[in-house]
């Protein structure tokens, strides 16, 4: 049971908002030592873990070009474009993004959208542009909310789209584990089909919550601030 202390360190650390790097580093060292690794093996585990997980950090490669475009007004242009579509509210826009993200992930195209590639440079300014057109200048709390929901649309779309695709890691993990451990034979296609009902639920639940943003953003008392702001700009 002692090794579960590492889990406790993580939960307590995140709950008290300590620096996550220190929390995770400490939990790793503690769990490793309690689990019977030598200090040298713990060090090696950090090294091999880093080497094997480099692919989660590679989105950094898109930052120079995105930064260059942002310097040249990419986000301003994304805002301007969206304000031309009268019917496009922030909720409808984000629900559309969710649908697109889910469909492309279901076709196996996981990395064509993402937080660095599409959410920051395109989806967030477009969502904010749509919200500003209807509600006027956004107070910081509303801006935070719109951005958080833009990130959530990307995550939900990815997670509950990718499993509909046959060759994704999680499906192959299931077939690999089950077929070797239990000497049976599961086809990736069967698993992918079973992912469809949950994918539809995800689209319905999160899509509905995104559409509802249009009403909740308007709600008092924050909405009154936003409406007042709009009058001021009109003057």
């Amino acid at each position, binding site marked *: 049971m002692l*090794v*579960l202390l590492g889990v406790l360190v*993580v*939960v307590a650390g995140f709950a008290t908002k300590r*620096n996550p*790097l220190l929390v*995770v580093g400490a939990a*790793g060292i503690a*769990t*490793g030592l309690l*689990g019977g*690794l030598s200090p040298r093996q*713990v*060090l*090696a*585990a950090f*090294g*091999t*873990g*880093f080497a*094997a997980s*480099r692919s989660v*950090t590679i989105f*950094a*490669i898109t*930052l120079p*070009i995105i*930064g*260059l475009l942002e310097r*040249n*007004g*990419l*986000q301003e*242009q994304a805002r301007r474009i969206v304000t031309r579509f009268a019917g496009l509210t922030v909720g409808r826009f984000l629900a559309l993004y969710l649908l697109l993200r889910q469909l492309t992930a279901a076709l*196996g*195209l996981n*990395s*064509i959208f993402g*937080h*660095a*590639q599409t*959410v920051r440079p395109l989806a967030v300014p477009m969502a904010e542009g749509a919200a500003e057109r209807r509600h006027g200048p956004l107070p910081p709390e509303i801006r*935070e909310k719109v951005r958080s929901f833009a*990130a*959530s649309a990307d*995550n939900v779309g990815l997670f*509950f789209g990718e*499993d509909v695709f046959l060759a994704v890691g*999680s*499906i192959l*993990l299931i077939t690999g*584990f089950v077929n070797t*451990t*239990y000497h049976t034979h*599961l086809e990736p296609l069967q698993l992918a*089909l079973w*992912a469809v009902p*949950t994918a539809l*639920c995800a689209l319905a*639940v999160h899509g509905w919550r995104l559409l509802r943003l249009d009403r909740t953003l308007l709600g008092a008392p924050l909405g009154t601030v936003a409406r007042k702001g709009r009058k001021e700009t009109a003057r």
Partner: protein
Amino acid sequence: MIKAEWFFWLVGGIFLVMAAQMLADRTNPKRHGTAAFWGLLGLGFVYSTWVADKSAPAEPLGAAVLAMVGLAGFGFTGRGAARTAAPEQRAASAERFGSRLFVPALTIPLVALVCAVGVKRLSVGGEPVLQKGNETILGLGIGAVVALAVGMVMLREKRISVPLHAGRSTLESMGWVMLLPQLLATLGAIFSVAGVGEQVRRIATSVLPGHSVFPAVVVYCVGMFLFTAVMGNGFAAFPVMTAAVGWPVLIEQAHGNAAGVLAVGMLAGFCGTLVTPMAANYNLAPAALLELRDQYGPIKAQLPTALALLGCNIAIMSLFAV
């Protein structure tokens, strides 16, 4: 053949160049610590090539990782003044280039798409052009490089240092969050080596009441949810929970549909990914990238959806799969 490792070297090289820019940046009060952090990250990316193929010892890299944790965790890193254009300049530039600005931005997904679907099948002299199994990562990398070239030509920007400075500002504003996803993946690996999974299996089996099916579905799905939240992804949770509950109880005893039980069980785990800071690349990195004040903003936006979908998964599994 274009190898994934080349691409990691490119990323490492970019980190090193940015580290040099940070060292020279006198507007950053902590420029030495900041440059050391990103320099170590860049060197680590390159050195990892030989750790991954086991031709170099992993311990020095582990020490470097812990040094980065110390540098960032104890506040030795900071950020300089952002080098960017004034809002008026941006607006003027948006006016001038208009929607052509989207061309380089959309080049990244477009090239990634072409690589993932088309170039994947190409081979020259019997060797695939893109290293097998890494097509999407390579597509993203090639897309970013092509987009940079397109963007610099289109905007008539001749100095490569301008996009690098712009990217460096974003990196500095994200700071240590950049390292967290990799560190969490490491923690997951240490957890499984140390036998955390075995303990969780014991707990799950001990709370399992008798032979009734519905409670077993709940234990399997909620177990996947919680264990995934603790580990940061469903991959570590799946074998443990399946060996404890999914296979012996739901499939063998209750004669459930194997594909249905396992696929929906994995998706119950994905609900856990939506609510945990342990899945830093999905939940904490975007908060930094989008400059949110509340680093748990995305998690808060996802929590109701995650709980509702956990309920959906339990319902789907108990109605249709067992």
